């Protein structure tokens, strides 16, 4: 049972005993299916609704006037079956959710955090407290609506080694997080967290706060020089400029226009309920994007940058500059006209979670070329500005760039003119893409390993693909269809450059908490 939490904020039940999560958890974890089911039910009732509203074409069908009692009976029977079926499905969902809740328990004992899950397929996951990298609180949309939070324990293992406690009541989640940090020997992290319910947004809106003292990593939670604020209006437009929403919007307008012009009958409106799952899918993605990147502020703390963002819940991510492994400046086709760019990074030790991923890797959700340049100058001060411009806008033929040969044309008819690489004193820059443009910067010292690949089509044209393997993250530094000889030459040269840069770079141990996610009591 979830313990009742005293107002003092002290846990009533110690973590040492097996305990369950919040009873609503399974329903929220299965949220999408639940929504899909509701969508299905709505779709079933749609025709009735249209009939009741008096849309021509539906009225006659659903209100059989003198067609006779048999038809009405058959209709009634049909509806009975549907209602019974829906109820049965609902019962099954609730039953399964209850079972799932009964069999999910966690405890902290003997230096381990343990989570047991499942009834048929049982799972028992343990994470040693000594291996805990960070403890985060996350709140997906549905959880936010119900006032629940998830505590995610991330460990030093591979990508799937985190342990999610989904979901706990808000105050209980805070207690569990603080207690776990304490047990994992990260008490100092607890002290750094601002009080719950504090309103840091006002402070931020107040403009640049005093610079961090001495450029130390241990800076007050809210300080530093504000590099940039993304206007929410621009973010809103940029979020809508997305293939999914553009396509859906165009379809809806077309259908409505044809219906209004009398070109098609009312049957066309019948398309809408069928589209509900798609709309939910696309809409949820867009809304999540908006909620996540709203109120975006990036601040420079000297040795790290801090991204503060979130429309309803404020999330803070600290990225130490020396942990940045790769930077990508990206422009999708839809952003070509407003000339907007996005910057994503790979951060060492970051965990990209399957579902509800929270380790923030976007340092510029949408911005102009000047914004992008300003941020790149902070992330990598030694990157020459003109090299970045050439990477973003260049079309081949630039003196410092090595492009792909024109025989790559058949494999990449548009992009081959742009694809290429350049080497600066500290990093390699890859550029690619003609419709959607991208430039990737990888410091020599940050390359994990390198691969060369060649498929049959490439071998026929004597081409090869180079990949610089970075740590886990959204950026994949990759250059396709380079000439084989050039690719081999690049690989050998790059190995030498990386080796020199690696020995020069200081050894930095994996810090226990590289990314930090907080939230204020601002949630819905």
């Amino acid at each position, binding site marked *: 049972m979830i313990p009742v939490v005293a107002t003092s904020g002290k846990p009533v039940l110690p973590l040492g005993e097996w305990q369950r999560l919040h009873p609503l958890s399974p329903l929220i974890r299965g949220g999408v299916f639940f929504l899909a089911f509701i969508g299905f039910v709505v779709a079933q009732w749609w025709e009735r609704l249209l009939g009741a509203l008096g849309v021509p074409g539906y009225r006659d069908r659903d209100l059989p006037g003198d067609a006779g009692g048999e038809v009405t009976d058959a209709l009634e029977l049909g509806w009975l079956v549907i209602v019974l079926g829906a109820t049965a499905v609902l019962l099954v969902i609730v039953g399964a959710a209850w079972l799932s809740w009964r069999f999910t328990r966690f405890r902290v004992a003997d230096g381990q955090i343990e989570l047991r899950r499942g009834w048929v397929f049982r799972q028992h996951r343990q994470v040693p407290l000594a291996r805990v990298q960070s403890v985060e609180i996350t709140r997906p949309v549905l959880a936010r609506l119900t006032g629940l939070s998830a505590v995610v324990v991330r460990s030093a293992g*591979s*990508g799937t080694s985190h342990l999610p406690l989904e979901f706990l009541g808000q105050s209980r989640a805070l207690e569990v997080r603080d207690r776990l940090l304490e047990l994992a020997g990260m008490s100092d992290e607890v002290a750094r967290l601002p009080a719950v319910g504090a309103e840091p947004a006002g402070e931020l809106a107040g403009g640049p706060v005093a610079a961090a003292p001495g450029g130390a990593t241990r800076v007050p939670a809210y300080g530093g020089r504000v590099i940039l604020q993304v206007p929410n209006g621009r973010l809103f437009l940029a979020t809508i400029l997305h293939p999914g929403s553009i396509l859906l919007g165009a379809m809806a307008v077309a259908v409505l226009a044809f219906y209004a012009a009398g070109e098609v009958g009312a049957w066309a409106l019948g398309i809408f309920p069928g589209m509900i799952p798609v709309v939910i899918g696309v809409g949820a993605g867009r809304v999540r994007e908006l909620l996540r990147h709203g109120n975006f502020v990036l601040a420079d703390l000297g040795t790290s940058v801090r991204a503060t963002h979130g429309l309803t819940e404020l999330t803070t991510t600290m990225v130490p500059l*020396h*942990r940045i*492994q790769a930077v990508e400046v990206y422009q999708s086709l839809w952003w070509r006209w407003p000339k907007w760019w996005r910057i994503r990074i790979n951060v*060492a*030790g970051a965990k990209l979670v399957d579902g509800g991923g929270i380790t923030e890797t976007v340092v510029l959700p949408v911005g102009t070329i000047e914004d992008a340049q300003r941020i790149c100058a902070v992330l990598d001060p030694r990157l020459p500005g003109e090299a970045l411009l050439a990477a973003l806008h260049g079309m081949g033929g630039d003196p410092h760039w090595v492009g792909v040969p024109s025989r790559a044309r058949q494999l990449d008819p548009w992009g081959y003119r742009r694809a290429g690489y350049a080497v600066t004193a500290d990093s390699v820059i890859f550029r690619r893409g003609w419709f959607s443009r991208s430039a990737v910067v990888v410091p020599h*010292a*940050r*390359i*994990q*390993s*390198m*691969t*060369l*690949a*060649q*498929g*049959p089509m490439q*071998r026929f044209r004597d081409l*090869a693909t180079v990949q610089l*393997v*970075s*740590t*886990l993250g959204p950026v994949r530094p990759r250059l396709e269809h380079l000439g*084989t000889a050039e690719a*081999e030459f690049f*690989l*050998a040269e790059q*190995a030498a450059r*990386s*080796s020199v840069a*690696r*020995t020069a*770079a*200081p*050894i*930095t*141990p*994996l810090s226990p908490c590289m990314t930090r996610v907080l939230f204020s009591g601002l949630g819905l």
Partner: protein
Amino acid sequence: MTTDAGQVTLRGNELPWQGVSGDLANARLIVLGLILAVPVLATAVLAILVSPWIAIATGVLALAGAWAAFVIVRQVSAISWIELPEELVIRKGRILRSLVSIPYGRLQYVDIASGPIARHFGLATCEIHTASPQSGGSLPGLPSAVAEELRSRLAARGEAQRAGL
């Protein structure tokens, strides 16, 4: 051990590339045989008992098996590796060629794994892990002693050339 690496051209052939044990092909052929034996036998028996037309399936399966065996032999002979002063390089594949170059300083840990059939041939797979889950290379078909030696060498060099993330 050298291979007929003449056809695998990525990163030149003037270097002393090492091949993997030919027994790896045998081990993989045995696995293939075990997988194919049941359906081939079943269809053959059915062909005799029920209808000779089912023999077509037997033939198709046998052909697929022969093709897979051919591919296995070619693939195994295409695996080669070399320890350069600062990196381990592994080449694989004939149709889809790939080469991965892992600097010793980037090694996180090295696994040695072997299944029952590989163990019968005294073979082991050396799996090399870096901080990136996608960058690891795996080197199958090393004699167990060689794999152990490689692991300790890699560990020593990794320690000597260790670099921060």
